[in-house]
């Protein structure tokens, strides 16, 4: 029975990044993945013969360039393709189209408002500044504001000093970004409703908030942070689908000596005298290690695998209070041909980027209102991509795959019955909504897969179907993620660490939590340490 330095629970992208860094630091690492395929929510699966889908997560958002570089992911097969622009069809028959080509975007926005076209260029400048300010925070272990630990205070001081160093206008913007709603923030810059609606959408993805809810402005930064990452593109599609990212990371991990076992599910974490010493598998076997790192969410880690009795009461109530409430669903379509949008008929570059059903701020807000009372939006916000246009390998010749991210689909339904009863109706709602803009959609669907929050929970082990392992709301960020006082990848159980999206800086295919947590584990455990 081999003994490991570190056992990593979950072969999601964070678990794999975490493992890779530990192995490169000389640790003997084992990764245990419940499913037959690696990647967690970052997987490519051939659900229908010949059609390969990025089943859950479908775009790379801010995969840390440090990770791409340090793990040499391109050498391990990672290729990120550009996701060019966002196309927003409108019921009026008009559309909004923003592309990476500035001049063109300028012209397009000017069709709606000359003022906004000017403002759009202006807007980018401070956003890049803000992005520069926020970036280092992603790679930082959050300080504990209640402790007098000098390193923590230094971190706070560091943040304070950098904030001081900002120009007054940037200070003002920064504070606004952290506290305002996306719409209130954008109202200060733009007058074009559809522009504000589409931009604000990024602020609500994966949260149970509306575009008018404070705290949603911050995510507007992410787009510009992608730009700063520069050389290594950190925003777009992965060739071969999102799973290709996980495979590249897994490859790098194996090369570094990591052992990876799929179809191996953990049922319990073994605790001895308040310390983690190994795991029990669903098969009944057990494995021992000096350190256990969990990349699954706090609910699974602490309430299922550790058990309340092994934890302090206050921590247990914090973990129970931690909010998931998944709010999104996914519809994956195998298409016989391309959708034909009334607003811009025929095939064309507008289909190569994101296609956003977000025609107005009121549309977005009303979609949210329905969800608040436990209904899925009858006219939802939909973010569509057709990767087969950029990466033919994922579909048979002439055919296409279309991935539709749908919000809002509240995990806790109050419509009578469970999600199993509403899955098809939900799928139809999505198709009907798309059909309002692309009438031919119904005729070209070969296969359709509908993922409700319940399915996301079942298939990917994401509690309540939250794609970020817990809501990205202000009270669950930085030193409050996942629990007050436990934001430093440590847990109340000695030698048990957290390394998933439920830790700072949270969700998206960023890899930062896995990398930050690895730094922590390496610092706190000796190489091959046997204690």
């Amino acid at each position, binding site marked *: 029975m081999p003994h490991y330095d570190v056992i990593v629970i979950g072969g999601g992208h964070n678990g794999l990044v975490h493992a890779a860094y530990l192995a490169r630091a000389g640790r003997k690492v084992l990764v245990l993945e419940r499913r037959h395929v690696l990647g967690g929510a970052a997987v490519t699966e051939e659900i229908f013969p010949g059609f390969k889908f990025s089943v859950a997560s479908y775009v790379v958002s801010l995969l840390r360039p440090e990770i791409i570089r340090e793990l040499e992911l391109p050498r391990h097969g990672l290729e990120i393709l550009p996701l060019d622009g966002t196309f927003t069809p409108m019921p009026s028959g008009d559309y909004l189209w923003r592309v990476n080509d500035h001049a063109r975007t300028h012209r397009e926005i000017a069709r709606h408002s000359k003022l906004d076209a000017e403002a759009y260029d202006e807007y980018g400048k401070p956003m890049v500044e803000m992005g520069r300010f926020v970036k280092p925070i992603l790679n930082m272990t959050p300080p504990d504001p*209640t402790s007098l630990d000098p390193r923590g205070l230094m971190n706070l001081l560091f943040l304070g000093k950098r904030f001081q160093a900002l120009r*007054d206008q940037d200070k003002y913007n920064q504070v606004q970004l952290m*506290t*305002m709603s996306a719409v*209130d923030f954008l109202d200060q810059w733009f007058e074009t409703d559809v522009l504000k609606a589409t931009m604000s959408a990024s602020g609500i993805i994966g949260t149970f908030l509306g575009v008018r*809810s404070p705290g949603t402005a911050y995510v507007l930064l992410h787009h510009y942070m992608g730009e700063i990452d520069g050389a290594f593109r950190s925003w777009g599609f992965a060739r071969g689908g999102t799973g290709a990212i996980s495979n590249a990371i897994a490859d790098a991990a194996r090369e570094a000596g990591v052992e990876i076992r799929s179809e191996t599910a953990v049922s319990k974490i073994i605790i001895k005298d308040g310390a983690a010493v190994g795991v029990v598998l669903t098969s009944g076997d057990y494995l021992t290690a000096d350190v256990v790192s969990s990349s699954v969410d706090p609910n699974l880690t602490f309430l299922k695998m550790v058990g309340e009795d092994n934890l302090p009461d206050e921590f247990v109530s914090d973990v129970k209070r931690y909010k998931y409430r998944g709010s999104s669903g996914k519809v994956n379509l195998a298409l016989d041909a391309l959708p034909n949008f009334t607003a811009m008929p025929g095939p064309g570059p507008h289909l190569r980027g994101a296609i956003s059903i977000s025609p107005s701020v009121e549309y977005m807000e009303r979609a949210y209102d329905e969800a608040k009372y436990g209904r899925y939006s009858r006219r939802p916000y939909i973010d569509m991509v057709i990767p087969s246009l950029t990466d033919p390998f994922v579909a048979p010749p002439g055919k296409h795959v279309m991935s539709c991210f749908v919000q809002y689909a509240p995990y806790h339904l109050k419509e009578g019955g469970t999600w199993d009863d509403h899955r098809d109706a939900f799928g139809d709602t999505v198709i009907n909504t798309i059909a309002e803009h692309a009438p031919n959609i119904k005729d070209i669907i070969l296969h359709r897969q509908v993922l409700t929050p319940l399915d996301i929970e079942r298939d990917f082990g994401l509690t309540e179907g939250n794609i970020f392992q817990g809501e990205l709301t202000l009270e669950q960020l930085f*030193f409050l993620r996942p629990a007050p*006082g436990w934001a430093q990848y440590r847990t109340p159980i000695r030698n048990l660490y957290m390394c998933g999206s439920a830790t700072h800086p949270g969700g998206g295919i960023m890899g930062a939590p896995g990398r930050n947590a690895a730094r922590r584990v390496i610092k706190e455990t000796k190489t091959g340490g046997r204690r």
Partner: protein
Amino acid sequence: MPHILIIGAGHNGLTTAFYLARAGHKVTVLERRDVVGGCAVTEEFAPGFRAPLAHAIGPVRETVVRDMALARRVTFLRPDPRLIALDTGGRALAFSHDVARTAEAIRSFSAKDAGMYPEFCATLQRLGGFLSGMLELTPPSIDAPAAGEVWDLLKVGKRFRALGRTDIFRLLRWGPMAAADLVAEWFETDLLQAAVAARGVFGTAQGPWSAGSGAVLLLNAAVDPAPGGSSVMVKGGAGALSNAMADAARGEGVTIRTSAPVVKVLVSNGKAVGVTLEDGSEILASAVISNADPHRTFLSLLDPVELDPSFLTKIRNYRARGTVAKVHLALNALPSFRGVANPADLHGRIHIAPGIDYLERSFDASKYGELPSDPYLDVTVPTIGDPSFARAGKHVLSANVQFVPYQLANGESWDAGRSRLSSIVLATLEQYAPGISAMVEASEVLTPVDLERRYGLSGGQIYHGDPALDQLFTMRPVLGWAQYRTPIEGLFLCGSGTHPGGGITGASGHNAAREIRSVLKRTKR
């Protein structure tokens, strides 16, 4: 002795006037209307019927009450029960000052909640107590904190740590939270949740599910930690309080001119040198203090050329979205509310919003410029504690109505909207006080637009600007200008649009006076 002008005799303007005069300054207060008090007034709305516009107050900060000897000049009423929350099933939940008694009342709804209530009160006490100190603090300057500021901050930091780990994290979590989530962590009874969470949304453009409503809840706890509020009132209404403050100010030598509307602040090479009145007359002064809200002060009383464009933009972006309407009813008898046996129990505030979703839905409507079919009502019947508001046997009902949009959808005019609103309010009241409609002799409906026209509240915003995460403390009214000063030398702010803002507490006026005094001292040297 240099002469100071204060624009507006609201309660904050009067407080600032008092403190500056007491410090030896020559102060004149210029009030647009024929009565002092701003929103803290008691006015006749129908022959023989008077109502307080603000029907419950702060309470006013203890220091202000003491310094202005207000307890000697007016009678403060502390109704008990302070708040009665009504549910749709005809049951009522009475919040008393006594925690144990309230817990008992809660027990008939939920034993679990009854058990939680005392700890919740104690927690609000502790967190409110800490924040209460911040209310009387001048927000530090972000760029270069002065020695004194650093010292203040260190003191705050010390008290912060003294709170202990659990409370510190509560403070950090609760601020950005949604009030609905906050109360759900403590209570299971919808009525109780709504009655407590309501203070996180009252007067704001956010619902209980809006992130950040927790901060408003905490801000209220700093002023008054009792869940749901103490409902402090004044014999004779808020107007009596304002008159008392005016007397106190006059006692220190302050001159108060009513019916003296200021239309412009005179600025000469970047310095405020006086004001112009509506009649064209000019009054020169060494300093001008505005009790008006930031929009009115900077966008209407000042010539835009006097202000830096980026500052102007920030002020324009300062959100002041009124959501409260005021309804006054003249009643020929005392209405009886379902679930309330003893009429005397109605002396406090009556909360009509039986659940979190109810609150949120009424907010939803206002987002689209619609009137809520079931509005959130914060009601008092002032005649119960003070018959002087109406002729013998008659009664007055005063209702804050939320959420009422400032601007109605599809350009509907408020003349049409007003009558719709009043029938909605009556229909709602009828559900909780059957037969009340038949008692109505006369009524007055003040829409957010009316509040703007009559009381000078830009956007009808009763707090001089939304209390939102990005418009509080060092960001009130805007980051960099939270110290009661303005880009115009010699022009200051002292109203609710400055830290800490909020209800009738005198805190802004008190802080402003302190700050202005030190500035004037420095400039004299």
